[in-house]
């Protein structure tokens, strides 16, 4: 399985592009290139433009021939009205609570376990790690039914506990952090041991501070995945006051499917927090993906 490792961890969205330097970099070629990537970027971004522009229209202006890309009159009140149409505050609060709790637990237990899998030597360690990794390869759909039965018998269906238990102890986080810890030289821990630091002390005082970038990567990936998750909440949360933004948005579409503008307003509100987090933490986000290549 060593193939499942990205060739390098140095990529970033603003990393130095490697371009074969050569005689043919003349202005016409560069211009053509710009036109090409602008067309591509427009194609990629059009759905977002549609989303934002429709969210600022009246319902009857969303579908027009020809399509109106800029609203004739900006209906800012959509962004006020939606809070009274659906319990948006509750949905956002639930999503935030789940994302923060799951991210915190995943990073905490994941980094702890990753230390045990990389810096302490003990019998059976590598065999257990293989078991961890093997489950990443098993599709979740293959064991979601027994999981559901167990949580149902435990009376945890339709509580946040079910989702927290399901998503906070993932093997993926352990894998990602272990890969990073392996790059921290063992001599560092060895020196600390000689100085009389316990293993827990080494974890807290040396490894944790050194692995901040990796922790940030894992935290961002987990937060975004939990915020965006539909399947988990869809299966486990049935009462309206526990719903996340994703469930709330989906049910809104089902209830008022002609209310195009308001649906787009809700979509924009559900996407904005992720946009902000992504733009702020882009570097860590991309690094996490490039080092693991093993998400999803």
């Amino acid at each position, binding site marked *: 399985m060593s193939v499942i490792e990205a060739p390098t961890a140095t990529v970033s969205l603003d990393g130095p592009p490697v371009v*074969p330097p050569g005689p043919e970099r003349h202005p016409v070629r560069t211009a053509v290139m710009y036109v090409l990537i602008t067309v591509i970027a427009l194609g990629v971004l059009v759905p977002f433009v549609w989303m934002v522009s429709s969210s600022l229209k009246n319902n009857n202006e969303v579908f027009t021939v020809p399509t109106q890309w800029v609203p004739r009159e900006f209906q800012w009140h959509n962004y006020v009205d939606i809070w009274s149409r659906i319990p948006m505050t509750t949905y956002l609060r639930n999503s935030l609570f789940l994302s923060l709790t799951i991210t915190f637990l995943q990073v905490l237990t994941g980094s702890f376990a990753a230390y045990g899998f990389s810096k302490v030597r003990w019998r059976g360690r590598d065999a257990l790690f293989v078991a961890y990794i093997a489950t990443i390869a098993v599709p979740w759909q293959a064991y979601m039914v*027994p999981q559901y039965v167990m949580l149902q018998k435990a009376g945890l269906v339709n509580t946040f506990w079910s989702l927290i238990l399901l998503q906070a102890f993932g093997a993926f986080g352990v894998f990602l952090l272990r890969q990073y810890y392996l790059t921290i030289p063992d001599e560092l821990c060895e020196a600390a041991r000689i100085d009389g630091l316990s293993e827990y002390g080494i974890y807290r005082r040396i490894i944790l501070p050194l692995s901040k970038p990796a922790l940030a990567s894992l935290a961002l990936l987990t937060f975004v995945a939990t915020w965006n998750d539909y399947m988990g909440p869809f299966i486990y949360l049935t009462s309206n006051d526990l719903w996340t933004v994703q469930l709330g948005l989906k049910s809104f579409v089902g209830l008022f499917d002609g209310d195009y503008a308001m649906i787009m307003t809700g979509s924009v509100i559900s996407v904005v927090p992720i946009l902000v987090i*992504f733009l702020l933490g882009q570097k860590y986000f991309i690094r996490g993906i490039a080092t693991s290549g093993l998400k999803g």
Partner: protein
Amino acid sequence: MAITAAPPTAPTAPSSARTTGKQSRRNTLIGISFILPNFLGFALLTLVPVVAAFGLAFMEWDSYNPAEWVGLDNFQKMFGSDTFWIALRNTLYYGLGHVPLTLLCSLGLALVLNRKLRGVRFFRTAAFFPYVTSMVAVAVVWNMLFNPTMGPINQLLTTLGVSSPPGWTSSSDWAMPAVIITSVWRDMGYYMILFLAGLQTIPVEYYEAARVDGANAWQRFWHITLPTLRPTTFLVLILLTVGSFKVFDLIVVMTDGGPGRATLVLSQLIYREGIAQGDFGYASAISLVLFVIVLLVTVLQFRLGERKDR
């Protein structure tokens, strides 16, 4: 598995065999104490269900009746059910569209965006952003774009001279292509990152040498870029294939398997039978089939990958 061999234990202090034994027991306890918090959750909610799934597939069990061993009955029922075959066919159809198209688009994006251009950073961010957008928002927006009468996509097609543009999600022939297009749009940025990482490992000297030898752009791509990217392409191919068998969110929100059963996929069938209907045994049998298919495809791809390596 890329487990780095444990370096030989450096004798930090002269120690007798007995203290080493004691030391190793202590180490084991410490090691386990680090793993335990994560392991408890992981074992209970992943390891146990994975094992249980195998057993459940051979049982008849629902919320009302006690579990009963029924051997291969579930599989017999499954292979005789046309819904199962439709879901299997749809899943393969989705994969056959999603995997090659996403591969091509993400490779294309990576090639175009792997150069020194002003603003390239913005373009990479733009290409990646759909991947962090939630499936619900993505599905809702594309459903509107695909609106058969008033949507911008069909308006564009009409302008381009298509007299009767497809009905997309409201037509059983075009619902799956609509889902595939949406999924390619969402996922290509993610795989672009992996390709960019691969492209940045190619030494510039290769290209310089090829240019000295008079190779044109196409030849350089074909003889240097593609072969050097092989490990990345292989990784992307596996991730894409496994991902395409797991598709759920997008389909549930965009078409809910419809119209009729036109976009019903395996993981959705597992949900319907096992969780909505409560037929745990039968759903587990379908899960087992899904798992075996994913496993076979992965092993097959590894084999092919190895053969090409020689």
